């Protein structure tokens, strides 16, 4: 799950990236509003974390611009400004949540999950498909009532497949999802992870669509 992180403080951004990666997200960092607008235009993100005090002062306009152009990605504002006035402006402009620094990472992660859940019209963090039971909160995975241990990347990939069942995900998409823009992906890295997933689950669960990508078969086992 890719997250667009817009934060101009280098140290803070570094810490958040480390933590978000560890929690199974793929954050991409932008330090200005203009960069963020460009990034959102060119790639898909599940969510945006936005600092209001950006160097180009573009944050609130960015929210409005996104909403006007029909970008429905949840926007979580994370800022040091705690005045009610700013909160109201941000939420009324189209932000989905507002958190004031300093924040506890666990709370931030929980709120990210809540926003994604709402976006994907789910009521809980448990995805059930094709005999797989994946808990997005504690990363617990079961296949046909048997516990399965997943690596971080495997979890990230499986989560994407389960969020978009029966849809073909291209290799490039999957690479971006699990490695980000500047990830040092080897040519067959994705294949290796898919292979491992198939080994842990069942080979037929993830179908290869030749020349296009991969797809999760939701009716597996039926």
């Amino acid at each position, binding site marked *: 799950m890719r997250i667009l992180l817009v934060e101009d*403080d*280098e*140290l803070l951004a570094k*810490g958040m990236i480390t933590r978000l990666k560890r929690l199974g997200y793929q954050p991409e960092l932008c330090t200005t509003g203009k960069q963020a607008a460009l990034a959102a235009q060119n790639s898909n993100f599940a969510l945006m974390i936005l600092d209001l005090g950006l160097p180009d002062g573009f944050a609130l306009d960015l929210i409005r611009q996104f909403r006007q152009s029909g970008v429905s990605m949840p926007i979580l504002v994370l800022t*040091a400004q705690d005045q009610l006035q700013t909160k109201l402006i941000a939420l009324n402009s189209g932000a989905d949540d507002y958190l004031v*620094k300093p924040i506890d990472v666990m709370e931030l992660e929980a709120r990210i999950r809540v926003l994604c859940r709402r976006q994907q019209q789910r009521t809980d963090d448990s995805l059930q498909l094709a005999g797989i039971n994946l808990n997005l909160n504690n990363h617990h995975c079961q296949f046909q009532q048997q516990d399965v241990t997943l690596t971080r990347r495997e979890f990230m990939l499986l989560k994407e497949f389960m969020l978009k069942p029966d849809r073909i995900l291209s290799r490039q998409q999957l690479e971006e999802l699990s490695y980000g823009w500047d990830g040092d992906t080897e040519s067959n890295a994705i294949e290796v992870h898919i292979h491992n997933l198939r080994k842990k689950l069942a080979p037929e669960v993830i179908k290869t669509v030749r020349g296009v990508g991969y797809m999760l078969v939701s009716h597996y086992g039926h």
Partner: protein
Amino acid sequence: MAINSIKFYLLLGINLLMLGALSLNAYIAYNDALHELNEIYDAELARSAKLISLLLSSNPLPLNEGQPVVVAVPHVTDMGETMTAQQERLLDGHKYEGKIAFQAQQHGQLIMLSENALQFPTPQHEAGYHEITEHGTLWVTFSFFVPEQDLWVFTAQRVDIREEMGEHIAQAQVRPILFMMLPLSLLIYLVIKQVLRPLNLLQQHVADKTPEQLHEIQLALPAELQPIQSAINSLLQRIRHYLQQEKRFIADASHELRTPLSILQLHAQNLSTAKDPNEVTEAIFAITEGSKRMSHLVNQLLSIARLDHLETINFNPVPLTPLLHQSLAQLPPLLLDKVHWQLQLDDSCLLHGDNALLQSVLRNVLDNAAKYSPTDGNVQVTTRVEHNQQICILISNNGNVAADTSRLGDRFYRHQQHQQVEGAGLGLSIVKHIIALHQGQLSFMRNDRGGLDVIMTLPAAPRGNVTPAIQ
């Protein structure tokens, strides 16, 4: 009613004035009446004397063996005012007759006298008015001489009767006003109370003010109170402004503290679960940097708080050149090596001010100059003595400095382009404050090298004072 109050003083003053006016009035009335009475009675004495002399010369008295004729007078010697005018009009005359006496002498012999003139000494044989004392009572006499008959007529009247009547007339004028004084005082008191009501109203409104509610007072007040109202309103406005400033300062300060705090918290949490040595290194570096940033910010905030409560500073002569060298030496080595320093110093510059505060000024400005310069940039420091007992310090850098010169020195102001540069935007506000405390001037100007000129003008130490504060 308090003694030290406008009401009390007004009431006291008006009553005293009234009493004074009454006394003056009574005194003048008494004197006037006495004067008029004297004229009337003197005329009466003369007329009586002439009447008696006329009667006596036309009808000579049959002398009764040399005994004079005695005319009786009513025996009322009481001088009081206990009887009514009707009662005083007795059958045999008027009690005041006792106060008028006469004697008539012919050929040196007493031929007729009133009863109350029996004890009189023989009057002077000299025509005109005289004053004599008989039994401790002062009388005014009039002597009249008819040469054809060799007849002397003396008429006399007690003086106290005149004084008594003068007093009566004066009292008659003063009494009604005297009786009116108490109700009048009460009325005046009520009027004063009414007049002072707007003042009470204003006082209540001012007393009702709380820091949360400092709105202007808009009362329909008399012209005298309007300046007070507007003075209070302008004070309220200043307090409001000050509170707003404080609020903004606290908001800004907490905002500035939140980011380093987030860094500490986030990286500390990361550290507790880190497995990779790289992650540990990263977290430790971030925590160290974050705490540095925070302690810098806290130090700046503390110096602002200290400056805010500083009312006076110790003025000492401070040689500028050593101070500049010290301030440069205190810069972080990385910053000191980042740019080329070009110093043009006038060693005779002797500032008049507080050594430590001035050093903080120089350190902050030099720090900024280097921080906002490109690597290997140029920072020029020029000092010179101005002719008007002022010392000018010019610190100028080059590069690509973006700044709104009108907002430089505002607390927490940082140009958006420089948000990445370390700092909270407090340094120049401290500089501004200290220079203001020294009655100096601070101005900023963009220069043609793309940098900023910071011009500080500070007072020079008075001449003849040669004891330097630092060696």
